[in-house]
């Protein structure tokens, strides 16, 4: 399933709220929590991480992973937390507005 434009940043921020993760971990986490629906390509995720880092919403540091391997872990910053709240409420508004317009799923006539 393709992502709506601009939602990837929000998903990353939301995922990191639970705690620091490395790049591949973020992708896996989004896939798992979405019930395998959102399969984010690493090729798009990685530039998004760098973009968020440049904006100061996430920060990175080298840590040792669960399998005792070194990896760069990303964590949410205070500014990122604020941004997540903003995007979250915008998203909620958006979903409810679209939902009102679309109404219930119509029955498909044969």
């Amino acid at each position: 399933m393709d992502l709506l434009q601009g939602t990837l940043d929000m998903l990353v921020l939301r995922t990191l709220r639970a705690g620091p993760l490395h790049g591949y971990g973020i992708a896996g986490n989004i896939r798992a929590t979405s019930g395998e629906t959102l399969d984010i390509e690493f090729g798009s995720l990685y530039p998004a991480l760098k973009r968020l880092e440049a904006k100061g919403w996430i920060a990175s540091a080298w840590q040792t992973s669960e399998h005792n391997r070194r990896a760069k872990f990303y964590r949410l910053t205070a500014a990122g937390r604020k941004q997540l709240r903003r995007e979250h409420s915008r998203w909620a508004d958006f979903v409810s507005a679209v939902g009102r317009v679309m109404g219930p799923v119509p029955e498909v006539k044969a």
Partner: protein
Amino acid sequence: MTIPQRLKSLWPAWRSREEREMREELESLAEIAGRKELGNLTLAMENARAAWGWTWLESLFADVRYAVRALCHQPAFVAVAALSLALAIGANSAMFSFADAVLLRPLPVPDPSALVDVGNSAPDEPLEGMSFPDYRDIRAASRSFSGLAAYRITQLAAAADPAAPARIRFAALVSDNYFRVLGVEPAAGRAFLPEESRSPGRAVAIVSHDYWRQYGGGRPAVGANLRLNGILFTIVGVAPEKFTGLDRFVLPSVYVPLAMSQRLDSAAADPLEDRGLHNLVVKGRLGAGATLDSARADLAAIGAALERAYPKTNHNRRPSVRTELARRILQSPQLLALSKMLMGLVGLILIIACSNLANLLLVRAHARRREIAIRLSIGAGRRRLLRQLMTESFLLAALGGTAGLFFAYCGILLLGTLSVPSDPPFVLGVQLDWRVVEFSFLAALVSCLFFGLAPAWQAVRLDVVSALKAGGRGVSGHHRTHARDVLVLGQIALALVVLIAAGMFLAGFRKMLAMPSDFRTDHLIGMDTAPAMLHYKPEQARAFYRQLVDRARAMAGVADVAMTESIPLSPSQTTLSVVPEGYRFPKGREKTLVFGAAVDAGYFRVMHVAIERGRAFTDDDRAESRRVAIVNHQFAATFWPGQDPIGKRIRLDSADGPAAEVVGVARTGHYLLVNERPQDYVYLPYSQNPRMRMTLVVESSGDPASLAAPLRDLVRSIDANLPVYNLRPVATLYQSRATDTWLQFFQMVGAMGFIGLTLAMTGLYGLVAYTVSRRVNEFGIRVALGAGRRDVVWLVERRGLILAAIGIAGGGVLTAVAVPALSAAFFGLGATPPVVYVIVPAGLLMVSAAASYLPARRAAGLDPLRALREE
């Protein structure tokens, strides 16, 4: 990203560290997840770098790198293209530096655009100066200016070393606030104080940087003494090196308070109290919020009040507020016309060069069809490719602009030889400065758009499939070269215009050499003296000149002696205000300002100025006898058309001034410039109109230059302090003012013609050679079928000649428009001999034939077998 962060990300060390970090991170992830799982990591990194926000710069670098590589592969193409542009831009920049020197360059003061010219506009004279009382009143009453400064330029006898003989120098008599209003800080010492400018003034001076360097003898300027017109001045300051006064051509050596006017000129009354003496230049610095229009409204009210209060002196006078440029154009409209003409001609050359480049780029784009088609087919955007091609054009333009500066410098050196031999010297001020450099690069940038955009656009619009199918050779056939034909036709047409212009100047120059001058120039030497500068009384000056003429006449080697107020064609001509009786002036005007001079009875005889009707002055025209005058033919034709001028009367100065009866008509000559329109001129007898500074004209029996030293000694023996200047043979003056001026303009326009011709022929040659190369196998077949060498040569030659003929015909139409404009801009061109219109096109056709012959010969020499194998 914040700005410091963005700047940091430009730092190479930061970038390489960041890249290493990213690579490590991705490698560690690849170990965790497996490389396949992560996809294209290089692309991911590439996209991640975009977060630094400098992608545009990086791709620009890539474009430039690619363009440099592409250009390096074709050094011959680059050389031809850059050289074409360099010649054209160089010519343009040189002409710009000329226009800059004579019209455009801003005043050498801080914020020059806020400094406006405040003058008087009278119906007789749109550019009249201000009287000091008017200036004082306007300065007190106006609200539009943060300051109003007044000055006038004069000539003084100056001696930096008070014991040495004085030299004539330009000086500016300035109001107390002059330097403050201009915003110019003296480089040493101080500006003038208000009390130094209160009448009768104090003998203090500020010297120009150049003057003190030349004559100061290494002494510190401030506190040193200086003798000006025999009065001892104390130097209180030195003007900065960059500040050379407010006038073109005339650079003051010293600045002294205006209040010193009366003492310097030993005038009977204080000229600063004479409301009728309109001789000051006034500059105002616009105050905060004031505009030209608001200042105009402000001054109109003040001017109306002054006119009411002083109807006698201020009748019909309106204060005018102008920009500096407007003033210069009004002052010297002929320089505007000349600048326009020269800039127009070099503009044509730039167009020729640009068409040449466009042509070369079209060929190049054609040859690169395959490369461009491949790049398009693997996904390069058309815009991206367009940018790439424009980057190449821009590099070419930058190369041409830089090399153009060299040619500009050569042109400026040539223009620098345009000099006026005069004491004190007039300075043209053509120089290679930042303004010229900026102009060159602007010209390069504009031409880059002009020559690069269309070929690049055409290149990226190609049809990928057919371009790939046709292979590198593209579709042959000459229906493809229409655009290029038109470009070459245009080049030939414009080259014809420039060449005709060069022909006109050459014809004018030849005519000038063949024509006898308006006055005699051989065996004459002129010498200026100015007893006014030594405070002679008028009767003393008269006695001095009587003695000078008598003793000069008695000198060995002297055949005859005459006196005049100004020698024709010398750069400073005297003027007279006259009212020709019986002439009805247009409404509002009551007199006219014409060139004129007081001359003695010997003048017409010695200078060989022909009297067409009536008589010359004689020794019987004495101070107490009836006042007489001689007018030139042009004056008679202007003011008394169809009437007999002999016996008519001219009022001098104003309608109620003294009347002089016209007793003779002299032939019209050239008075200020060799290319001027016929000017009105009035001669008055010196005996009835004594002047305080005159020029002695001495006719020698041998070499006139040998009389220089004896004449100088003669003046010394009468008064050792009297400055002698402009002592030189009349032929020297004539040579530089007439012959050399023509020669230099011919050289300039001739060089333009040559450049235009070369560029247009390069274009024609390129096009014909290109056509030959496209038709190699056609020629091969023709030769194989038995066509002779001459047939092939003619086939190619015919194409070149047809192009040239159409171009010349088109140029003929343009010439019909251009020639009247040229004649108007440079009056002395006159009617062009018809032979110019024959020789130039014929010559152009011949050169075109030669340019097409080279490729034609190559076509004829083709080996049919090889030519056919190439397919």
